[in-house]
């Protein structure tokens, strides 16, 4: 299968990360010295990875082909749905780790800081993001949520 064209989703990712940062300025304090670390978020069942640098002055959320992963400080791997539920505060990261559904490599302290920063965000990040894209965004989230529900009850 040819690699997916990623250029189309880069502006969307930029809007998403800017929105989360604008809505939650306090989260950056929890990152401590790791605010400019590079994290690779690897949804193992998707054909690409995300690269995140949560620096409030120089934010980055970029999609990369698997053969084009840049040098990074830490990597978090799991299924797309698990990662989504994790970011949304619906799943406990430690529980995923115990079940071997989440893998962390690299700088563990940076990952712990990122986890704590994201976990302190109230409400649903996914909902806020889907609102940015109007009815199609909300419809897409509805589909994902139903998949999440199925996932939970399995």
């Amino acid at each position: 299968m040819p690699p997916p064209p990623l250029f189309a989703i880069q502006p969307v990712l930029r809007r998403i990360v800017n929105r989360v940062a604008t809505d939650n300025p306090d989260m950056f304090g929890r990152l401590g010295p790791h605010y400019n670390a590079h994290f690779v978020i690897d949804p193992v069942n998707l054909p690409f990875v995300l690269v995140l640098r949560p620096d409030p002055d120089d934010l980055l959320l970029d999609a990369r082909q698997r053969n084009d992963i840049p040098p990074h400080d830490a990597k978090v791997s799991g299924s797309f749905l698990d990662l989504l539920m994790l970011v949304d505060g619906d799943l406990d990261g430690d529980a995923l780790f115990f079940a071997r559904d989440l893998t962390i490599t690299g700088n563990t302290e940076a990952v712990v800081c990122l986890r704590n920063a994201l976990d302190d965000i109230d409400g649903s990040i996914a909902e806020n993001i889907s609102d940015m894209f109007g009815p199609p965004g909300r419809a897409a989230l509805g589909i994902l949520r139903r998949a999440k529900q199925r996932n939970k009850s399995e």
Partner: protein
Amino acid sequence: MNRPELVCPAGTPSAMRTAVEAGADAVYCGFQNATNARNFPGLNFTVPELEKSVRHAHNGGTKVLLAVNTFPPAGKVDLWKEAVDTGAKLGVDAFIVADIGVADYIAKNYPDIRLHLSVQAAASTPEAIKFYCREFNIKRVVLPRILTVPEIKTMADEIPCEIETFIFGNHGLMVEGRCSLTNYITGLSTNMDGVCSPAAQIQYIKDDSGNLTTKLGEFTIDCFSCDENAGYPTICKGRYLTPAHDGAYYAFEEPISLNLSTLLPDLMAAGVTALKIEGRQRSRAYVKSVVTAYRKAVDNIMAGHNPEISDLLALTEGQKETQGAFKSKAWR
């Protein structure tokens, strides 16, 4: 039977709001420094965060207990005094302490604020607990996780203060306040720096076959094959090779969590005043699930119904649970 207080963990303001909404009677928390025993990176409260969170918790009818439960090294006591002064100013309902110097400071300067003796003080005899009550006017003791339920009942009859026991969460060596394993390997002390197995020294290494090795500093703590559940890289949960044993084995404790759901009625009948859920370092998803489950169970027991405890196994370390010494001294 008195209705026990459900005491719930809050590592962030969001986790505290989650605990309040899920029905916590009290939440416990700490500042972002070595004054509390969960001094993890990115966790805990700034002063403005705690100020806002105390207001929110009180509006929801939930008490806030401030953990100042580490032991100040010589020459550094001011940080602990500052945490106490700030907590008092913000209106916390109680301090959880382990060190006698910190306890004395609070007893003398803030006699109207309740003092709870932390599990870190490891006070496990009526004599020790009575001493703390007499000297510092301790109102509640958090018992070390080494007593059986009948022993707790006997204790309740002998001491002049309330009893709090853990009911869910991390289950280690149970030499509380005295464990130096982390200090030995990392140079940081659980008891003085407030952190066991610091994340900065943890490494996870996954090989091509999916086996996961966990390391703390230079030491390999465990190696999980791809179909095994994993545990934290804490030294007391490590699987080690020693000449005294064939093959690698869990020398102290295995990856496992405490879950006393089925002992709840017995604990409540034994005179336990407060039931504590461990896990300030865990997510708000954990807080929501565990607090909701125990809220329902306690309310059911009080109403004379079956406790009906939800399954919390997925949240336990290694997906295994134990009743530890509460059930039997033979637990290890």
